[in-house]
């Protein structure tokens, strides 16, 4: 018996939330138990791997026997024994728990380039990365090709900044390259702080070496010898994996002096920020590293010319750097051809909200939103109707059904009123209130506004007040127009990207869902029955059995009734918490 068995447990953030660590320890304990240990010894090993993508099915476990992969879904610690007994010992996979055909469909329309290693190997193990061709691109960049050629390759690949704005990465590098300076910096922006996005975190946790490799290549190209990875201290596992990766690179001579014996020096440090959304903006981010308040400053120069401590600094997103090794290794035209004109390669998204298959996805540019939602995402949960898709987090916008044929492309998305942003796709269904969602994003940007420039500080506050008024049923005639006017001024006059994009969620929802705003303002109704002040709860007396469950959960004692006789809600006492609605087994409570 000389089977080689690998057990890979997803411990990406989704996996951990579903109990991945417990599943991993269950496997490890089971493996070290006497019988298995004796029979298989070192040939059977359990590994933690990064995000496998299909987070809705977590915890996902791959069992690879001599290269043959079987994937289990929804694994719980108590399932581990049976998997080991039947699959590993007897060689018969536990058919009930193995993923079905829909698992394949999820990946069918995806093209995993940046994510190719994520979820396949132990992200902290540098030897596996090296074995799979890691750092080959770095060797090529350091030894075989000149900096000019690296820059030309990146330019010709049409790789655009994956942080949201989509500035061509090659151009940025070229600017920095052209400036003569002994000190230059390379900074990786991993300050992902938008609600609803986790793709950078998944990469930092799942593929830290690819990011580091991309950064060293960039440093070589522009002539920098010092760099920072900027991540949030609160993201403990990203920070831990990155730090381990940096330490191991130093040990292997991949960072520090004379990298790979090619005479190039590069030092990389991890900077743990204290978390503020505005710090994702390049100037604010650089000020934080300098030990100042994370406030943006006017961009008279681009950071590539005058950045950290006034030195030329290339700031790129995590995903941008992680794309670099592949481009250098396989060439510009390979990457460019993955995408469409002016948009090379692939884009990683965090697909969340009301779709069946939530998770981390990577698609080619040119894939339509419809394909993403219905083919990859598997459609809407519970057979409800699709209402809108929100792209790009608090800086992005909502799109309605009629724009579902828009393709993933920086320009097409911008012309539809959203931005690519950092890659959050949130799907909303008929039960979600568009106005409330827009208010939620505005609340976020208003709270995160650093307060430096007036349009953003005061403007977002005024807009939020109007939104609050509308959702509270006190909307006035002309409010919608006022929102539009304010929004345009804020966009035109704010200092940094935060302010310039803050009105997007409101403006785009007005554009596509004006009727819902009108229903709130004029009809004083919330069509999706979400906005508290605009809904009432009533008990349908012909359905109510008088079981009393609603009475017991009501925190305001607003429900009265005698057992087995229909109950009633006192509208004066009801705080509209919705507890009764959730608990009623007979669907006797009407929310409208």
């Amino acid at each position: 018996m000389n089977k080689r068995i690998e057990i890979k447990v997803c411990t990406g953030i989704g996996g951990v939330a579903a109990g991945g660590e417990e599943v991993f320890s269950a496997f490890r304990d089971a493996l070290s138990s006497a019988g298995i240990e004796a029979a298989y010894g070192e040939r059977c090993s359990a590994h933690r791997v990064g995000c496998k993508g299909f987070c809705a099915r977590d915890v996902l476990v791959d069992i690879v026997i001599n290269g043959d992969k079987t994937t289990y879904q929804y694994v719980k610690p108590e399932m581990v024994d049976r998997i080991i007994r039947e699959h590993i010992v007897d060689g018969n996979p536990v058919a009930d728990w193995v993923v079905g055909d829909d698992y394949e469909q999820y990946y069918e329309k995806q093209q995993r380039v940046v994510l190719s290693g994520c979820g396949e190997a132990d992200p902290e193990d540098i030897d596996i990365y090296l074995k799979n061709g890691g750092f080959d691109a770095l060797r090529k960049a350091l030894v075989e090709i000149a900096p000019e050629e690296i820059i030309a390759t990146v330019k010709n690949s049409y790789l655009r900044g994956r942080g949201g704005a989509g500035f061509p990465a090659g151009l940025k590098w070229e600017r920095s390259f052209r400036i003569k300076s002994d000190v230059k910096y390379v900074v990786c922006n991993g300050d992902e702080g938008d609600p609803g996005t986790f793709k950078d975190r998944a990469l930092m946790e799942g593929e830290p070496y690819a990011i580091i490799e991309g950064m060293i290549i960039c440093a070589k190209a522009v002539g920098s010898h010092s760099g920072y990875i900027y991540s949030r201290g609160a993201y403990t596992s990203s920070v831990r994996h990155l730090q381990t990766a940096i330490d191991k690179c130093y040990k292997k001579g991949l960072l520090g002096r004379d990298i790979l014996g090619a005479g190039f020096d590069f030092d990389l440090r991890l900077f743990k920020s204290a978390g503020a959304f505005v710090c994702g903006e390049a100037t604010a981010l650089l000020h934080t590293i300098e030990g100042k308040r994370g406030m943006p400053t006017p961009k008279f120069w681009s950071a590539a010319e005058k950045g950290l401590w006034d030195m030329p600094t290339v700031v790129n997103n995590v995903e941008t750097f992680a794309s670099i090794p592949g481009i250098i290794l396989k060439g510009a035209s390979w990457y460019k051809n993955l995408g469409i004109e002016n948009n090379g390669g692939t884009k990683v998204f965090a697909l969340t909200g009301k779709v069946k298959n939530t998770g981390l996805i990577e698609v080619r540019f040119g894939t339509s939103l419809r394909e993403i939602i219905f083919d990859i995402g598997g459609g809407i949960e519970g057979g409800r109707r699709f209402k809108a898709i929100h792209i790009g987090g608090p800086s992005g916008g909502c799109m309605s059904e009629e724009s579902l044929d828009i393709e993933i492309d920086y320009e097409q998305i911008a012309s539809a009123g959203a931005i690519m942003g950092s890659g959050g796709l949130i799907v909303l269904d008929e039960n979600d209130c568009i106005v409330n969602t827009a208010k939620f994003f505005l609340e976020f940007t208003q709270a995160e506004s650093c307060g430096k420039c007036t349009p953003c500080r005061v403007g977002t506050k005024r807009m939020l007040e109007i939104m609050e008024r509308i959702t509270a049923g006190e909307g006035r005639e002309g409010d919608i127009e006022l929102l539009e006017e304010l929004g345009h001024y804020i966009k035109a006059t704010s200092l940094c990207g935060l302010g310039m994009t803050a009105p997007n969620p409101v403006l785009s929802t007005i554009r596509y869902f004006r009727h819902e705003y009108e229903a709130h303002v004029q009809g004083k109704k919330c069509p999706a029955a979400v906005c508290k002040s605009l809904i009432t709860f009533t008990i349908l007396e012909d359905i109510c059995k008088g079981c009393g469950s609603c009475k017991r959960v009501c925190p305001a004692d607003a429900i009265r009734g005698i057992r087995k006789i229909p109950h009633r809600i006192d509208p004066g006492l009801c705080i509209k918490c919705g507890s009764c609605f959730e608990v009623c087994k007979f669907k006797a409570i009407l929310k409208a």
Partner: protein
Amino acid sequence: MKERNNIEETLQDMMNSSAKERENIISVFQSIQETFGYIPEKAVNLVSIRLSVPASRLFSIITFFPQFHLKPTGENIITVCRGAACHVKGSERLLNRILIELGIPPSEDTTEDFKFTVEKVNCVGACSMSPVVLINNEVCGKMTFNTLKKKIGKIRSGE
């Protein structure tokens, strides 16, 4: 959490071990907060002297970042994710009900007995498991108020 009279001693050690560069201000405060659970005013003054940076500037940095606390926090930290996906799945209600359950008055975040602090976070990145709550940094997905109440009860009874 360390005793109060130890603050100065611990700080001295901490300052000696971390380099005295201005770029370390944020990491210095991060380790102070890790040790004490919050940033004591004493500590700010001490850092100010050590780094020759006015205390006002330090306060401006501390108050800028939501991660830093100037007031003592509870023994257990419950962090409710307020990301978009969690919002869509009802995190706002979850947050309100925890605050009511723990009896935390408006505009406060800590219980009177310093057992619990309730915080918000913009997104923990486990959107597919929404709504998400972190209990002492342990990620708990698909959270309902009842499960959370049970977990809080367990912590209360000292498990």
